[in-house]
């Protein structure tokens, strides 16, 4: 069989069919790039350039919150005299301005604060370590003197340690505190307690 006057490549075999006729004339060196392959590679290259030029700025744009530097934690006056604290955890509210994107909003947080046996102040974050609901002190009749989370019945002891076999996986976070002029200052962000 003779194919005359056809100039195309058999791309799979990388075999040149020449105008002079005949099939499978010479197997070309596999390393050598044919004209068609060259065009395809260049096309892919230009396409890749266009695609990445469009998507990369967008992806960086979308990922910006992740790459923002971590904000520090400020200490906020709770207007609570340290003398008023007792052994019993007390709900202490404190407000501060918080930046939320393009807004700056007054935000109120609260902490469960008490003095332990050594007179040390403990300020627990109320945010349950399971799924972020708020825990309440002593709010469950079946579990007195514990922090109770109403969402999935998570429990914590008074020292914030999670009760085993309840949903939470870690003890309650703690706020940093400072005492200035007898008033309690709490940090805006709570820290994890290594259990």
């Amino acid at each position, binding site marked *: 069989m003779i194919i005359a006057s056809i100039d195309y490549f058999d791309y799979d075999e990388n075999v040149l069919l020449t105008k002079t006729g005949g099939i499978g004339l010479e197997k070309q060196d596999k390393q050598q790039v044919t004209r068609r392959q060259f065009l395809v590679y260049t096309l892919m290259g230009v396409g890749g350039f266009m695609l990445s030029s469009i998507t990369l700025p967008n992806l960086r744009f979308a990922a910006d919150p992740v790459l923002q530097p971590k904000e520090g934690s400020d200490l906020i006056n709770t207007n609570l005299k340290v003398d008023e604290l007792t052994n019993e955890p007390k709900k202490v509210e404190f407000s501060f301005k918080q930046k939320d994107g393009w807004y700056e909003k007054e*935000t*109120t*947080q*609260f902490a469960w604060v008490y003095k332990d046996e050594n007179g040390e102040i403990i300020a627990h974050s*109320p945010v349950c370590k*399971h*799924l972020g*609901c*708020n825990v*309440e002190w002593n709010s469950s009749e079946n579990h007195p003197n514990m922090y109770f989370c*109403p*969402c*999935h*019945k998570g429990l914590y002891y008074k020292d914030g340690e*999670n009760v*085993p*076999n*309840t*949903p*939470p*996986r870690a003890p309650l976070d703690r706020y940093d505190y400072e005492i200035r002029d007898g008033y309690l200052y709490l940090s805006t962000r709570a820290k994890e307690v290594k259990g």
Partner: protein
Amino acid sequence: MHRGKGMKFVGDSRVPASHRKPNIPKDYSEYPGKTEAFYPDFLLKEWIVGAVFLIGFLCLTIVEPAPLERIADPTDTTYIPLPDWYFMFLYQLLKYSYASGDYNFLGAFVIPGLAFTALLLAPFLDRGPKRRPKDRPIATGFMLLAVAAIFYLTWEAISTHDWEAAKRQGEIKEIVEVDKSHPGYEVYQQQTCISCHGGNLEGVGTNPALTGIDRTADEIKDIAVNGIGSMPANIFNGTEEELEQLAEFILSVNESE
């Protein structure tokens, strides 16, 4: 179809001059029974079903307004969240001790992950040629199990949720500006009523509002002293005169509405 150099075009455009496709319906005789054309025969039947469905659907939108709770207050500490109903089974799963706590990874990722991956890859897991459910008991069994689990977990989540409290928590509250110069307002503050019923009697968390209530002065006094529902007795410990002022104040707010 004519291709290549010999193709005739209309003027200079690329529209071929002739060679229209003949409009012959395809032959589908592989399935038993009577077949019918999609348009208009079968589509009409589909649209009848669609219309009946739509009537029911529109009735639903008219009878039951889409719920809207009060504006989000992320600092509200007492709100008990609940996902949309079709996520409830996953939410409920996380309540069990072997799916939470130290096993959270199991409950939140492994179990749902396995289930959904199995669903995705069902054609490759259940490869036999047989199609009837009873001819492939393993596939049928697993699916029935999964459906039963979803129904059970959803039902558990619904039945353990305190819907009454949820309704109160989410209610849109009309904030009525109360007369804070009223002598009763001072009593209201002093007797710590304010911490549960709010600065404008709007109620805090699950504690009810004191606006829009239908009670007499004596009833209000009685509740203040003896409590009601989850409100304990003896929260009020002032004088008889203060009690009178308090009741008068609460009544005045309700009358001015």
